[in-house]
């Protein structure tokens, strides 16, 4: 049971963002800029940063949601599965591996990022902006994961919910749906 009264048909983060729509707005905007805005990292790569952070924080809702989103963008499921157990063995470029390692360090603490982690990414061709955005995406998911689990939000009844959610994240991004989320009520029955 969630610790506060969120709408029963909105598991995970969605119920929280609807509970306090004013604070939701800048959180949504920040996520939209970082994960969908113009970037030299692909949407799939940025979803992998969200996935590796959420997985390290053991946040089931966020891990499942961003795994599903990454899988849609990448068109395969192997990479997201791999990074959750061993970043180095994933079928990714050296640059992406280095960025995912930075994200994993950020998850531990900002102070865990050492010059050699940044040097590895830079040597593999990462730009300053890519390093910046990796850090901020991982930090943002440290917010999300704590928000979702700190208020004990519910998981959806069916794992199929995440496929639907991932479609929405691909097609609409992270801003609030103009029509809200009441249409999801019927899916609960």
């Amino acid at each position, binding site marked *: 049971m969630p610790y506060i009264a969120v709408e029963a048909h909105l598991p995970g983060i969605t119920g*929280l963002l609807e509970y306090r729509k004013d604070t939701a707005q800048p959180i949504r905007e920040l996520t939209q*800029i970082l994960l969908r805005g113009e970037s030299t990292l692909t949407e799939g790569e940025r979803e992998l940063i969200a996935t590796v952070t959420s997985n390290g924080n*053991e946040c089931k809702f966020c891990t499942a949601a961003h795994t599903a989103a990454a899988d849609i963008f990448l068109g395969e499921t192997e990479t997201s599965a791999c990074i959750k157990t061993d970043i180095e063995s994933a079928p990714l470029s050296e640059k992406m591996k280095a960025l995912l390692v930075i994200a994993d*360090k950020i998850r531990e603490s*900002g102070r865990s990022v050492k010059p050699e982690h940044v040097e590895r990414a830079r040597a593999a061709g990462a730009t*300053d902006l890519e390093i910046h955005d990796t850090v901020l995406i991982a930090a943002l998911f440290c917010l999300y994961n704590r928000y979702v689990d*700190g*208020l*004990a939000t519910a998981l959806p009844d069916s794992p199929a919910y995440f496929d639907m959610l991932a479609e929405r994240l691909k097609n609409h991004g992270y801003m609030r749906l103009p029509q809200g989320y009441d249409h999801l009520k019927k899916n609960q029955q």
Partner: protein
Amino acid sequence: MAHIKLNNELPGIRGLMAYRPETEVPLNALVELLLRDDNNTLTRGERELIGTYVSYLNDCFFCQNVHGALAGHYLNCNIEQIDSIKHNFQSTDLSPKMKALLSIAASVQKGGKNVTEEQIEAARTEGATDVEIHDTVLIAASFCMFNRYVDGLGTWAPQDRQFYVDRAPRRAEEGYQSSVYN
């Protein structure tokens, strides 16, 4: 030295915000709403204290001094009094409700799953509302982001703590949205 070339000399998060103005806008909008908006039953001082305490637990020098100075400004406390709250808030004369909320914030800092039903019940018993509990969790979670952003990119911070105390009144007056260059 920051891990990336920021092309400015501004300390802490201000250097990062000047580097990437697009993400600065929602970051400052969030903190303005959470910490400074007057439509809130927690005082600005109480909310700054939550931010200060989480930043202290995350060992982020810049954030704990910025927000500690603001908390001190609002609550009429000096640095030593803010420090004693950081080091052991249970032994201070904060209200039982604030102590219960700070205990929730400390659990959020460790990880979301550390927040227990007993902690929530204790806060409720002391009169905390659902929105206050929500905001405590979100403020604590937000500082887990801000602290990581500031330290994860290796930004510099003025070491003289009076620097932060001196800036606090103007920040309290003008808010976060004008904080980057002023």
